[in-house]
């Protein structure tokens, strides 16, 4: 589904990703861990298509197409979803209006007719239950006045509504208490299928107790320096990142 080869990316002339390789297949959950400043969020931003980053080398193939050539909105329409670390507030725009606009833009791109108001509301009801999101939040302005936990749940609710092929969760666990963490993780697990894939970016192992990864990758200094089964996450939790740093310091 996703093949990243030798990806180099920089911002303001500073190279952040320095030859990153990663392959994700349908049905898989990949966890990307690493110390602060390793390039985790940069990877998420580059895949989603943030313009501030300059790609200097490498390729990214998404479902047989060149992802890096696609406009940001087309990546989303092709089924790439980013759950933001810091979800953005859009005052005056209701969550439902926002999502209906998004859903219809995606449907139009795929040559499907716009969803009817009735079907849309039924979908909202069904999907909001997955993350135990209060129906009232669906009619409030996008993320405005939401608590940290509500914002993250709203991200997963949006993911459920848009049904992506590849979801990237960028530090979705940050700022969540244990109950919210469980709800968010359960939501992600319920959305999992053998057709879609998930990349979980996290600093801590905690989230991986709930979202069990098939592979764990350690990102350090712009590269994936170590990959392994889910147990690697426990090892990192126990030992910290210092041994990685020592091993790969240059």
């Amino acid at each position, binding site marked *: 589904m996703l093949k990243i080869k030798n990806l180099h990316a920089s911002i303001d002339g500073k190279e952040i990703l320095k030859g990153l390789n990663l392959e994700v297949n349908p049905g898989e959950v990949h966890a990307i861990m690493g110390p602060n400043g390793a390039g985790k969020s940069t990877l998420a931003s580059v895949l989603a298509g943030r313009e501030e980053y300059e790609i200097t080398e490498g390729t990214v193939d998404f479902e047989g197409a060149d992802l890096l050539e696609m406009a940001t909105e087309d990546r989303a329409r092709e089924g790439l979803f980013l759950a933001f670390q810091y979800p953005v507030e859009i*005052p005056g*725009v209701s969550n439902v*209006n926002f999502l209906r606009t998004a859903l219809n*833009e995606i449907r139009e791109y795929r040559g499907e007719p716009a969803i009817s108001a009735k079907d849309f509301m039924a979908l909202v009801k069904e999907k909001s239950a997955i993350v135990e999101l209060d129906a009232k939040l669906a009619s409030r302005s996008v993320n405005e006045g939401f608590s940290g936990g509500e914002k993250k749940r709203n991200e997963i609710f*949006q993911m459920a509504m848009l049904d992506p092929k590849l979801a990237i969760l960028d530090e979705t666990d940050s700022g969540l208490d244990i109950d919210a963490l469980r709800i968010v993780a359960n939501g992600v697990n319920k959305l999992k299928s053998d057709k879609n894939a998930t990349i979980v970016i996290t600093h801590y192992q905690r989230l991986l107790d709930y979202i069990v990864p098939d592979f764990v990758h350690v990102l350090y200094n712009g590269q994936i320096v170590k990959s392994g089964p889910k147990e690697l996450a426990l090892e990192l939790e126990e030992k910290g990142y210092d041994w990685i740093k020592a091993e790969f310091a240059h």
Partner: protein
Amino acid sequence: MGYTENDLAKDLENSEYKFGFTTDIESDRAPLGLNEDIIRFISAKKEEPEWLLDYRLKCYKIWSEMTEPSWAHITYPKPNFQGISYYAAPKQTKKYESWDDVDPEMKATMAKLGISLEEQQRLTGVAVDFVMDSVSVATSFKSKLKELGIIFCSFSEAVQEHPELVRQYMGSVVPATDNFYAALNSAVFTDGSFCYIPKGVRCPMELSTYFRINEANTGQFERTLVIADEGSYVSYLEGCTAPQRDENQLHAAVVELIALKDAEIKYSTVQNWYPGDKNGDGGVFNFVTKRGICETNAKISWTQVETGSAVTWKYPSCILKGDNSIGEFYSVAVTNNYQQADTGTKMIHLGKNTKSTIISKGISAGKSHNSYRGLVQIHKNAHHARNFSQCDSLLMTDECGAHTFPYIECKNPSAKIEHEATTSKIGEDQIFYCLQRGISEEKAISLIVNGYCKEVLNQLPMEFAVEAQKLLTISLEGSVG
């Protein structure tokens, strides 16, 4: 002082007029320039009563002793007031010979606004036969109003048919001495709208100038008078979302609202005069004086969506004279390219327990300048007066400007005044968030801007609000930088 070149020029000018038109009363157009005789000419053409001519002459005298104000945050070439013809016969002029002559860009814009082809043709002034539909709608509309005793007609008609009302109220809220442009309008206005709602009557429909746009060419000095008698209610709509082109560069309208005891007037405007081209050439200069007066328990609510004109100078205001009266001002002003807007409101609190709310949303794009200018004045007898003001500015580019000039004058210690102001640049983060959900940039901007203006758009009647939303989107197309 000796006789100067200027004096000579003036004499020549005046004498030319003296000969020019007293004999030429059959002409359909006044010669260029302004003097007492021109005013007599206008008044005679309109077969006005003596009192109105006297009023015009008095106003002309006031105007001629005034100088054009320069305090607003706008720059423009000063109009040559002697280079304007102040009267043209009110006939329906054909602006285009055929539909094919109409600017394709204008057609495209109207199509985007969802205006029917028939409406598009009517609005552009193409001579068409099938205006019949609009006429019949307007006719049935009028008979219904008549049943309720509501008067809704052109200003000229009101002068002939209801002189007592016009005489009593015209100039009572905006006296000619108020400002340069109001004085000019009072001297030379040609037509406009008049509306009277009788005691206790709730006008069952939105009164729209739209219905009578074809009846008379109101010209560049429009005069509007709305009187809501005791306990009555009216919602009045001015303008339309379709782009309006006009050969006259200068527009100076006067709107007066009178809300008597327990009455309520809701006045909504969508202004989309030609703003000039992308380089700032052409475009309408819009200098408007709008003001309402509230008697006891009355309420006046101004809502405006301003997207057009090269220069806008406009401060719809409320005089809260009666106790417990309420004034509201909701405004969205969009400027793009080289447009300049200096707009806001004045809330004059005279009565006890008077309340005012100001919500102003400015959006600046391109190289434009957008200023909010507002005055909240609490007089010494206005016990427990309250005001809440919120002025937000949204910047779309790095080259545009937003300015806020709030003035507060409070002479009563029991008053409560709140003012909030924010300035923000349209968030790249917000746009990216939308893009990442599959929403195109154009739709993203439309969503964000409409969300930003929601409090104001919510005040507009439903149909108008939908059109205004589309208009905002169109006005800002491709404007993020």
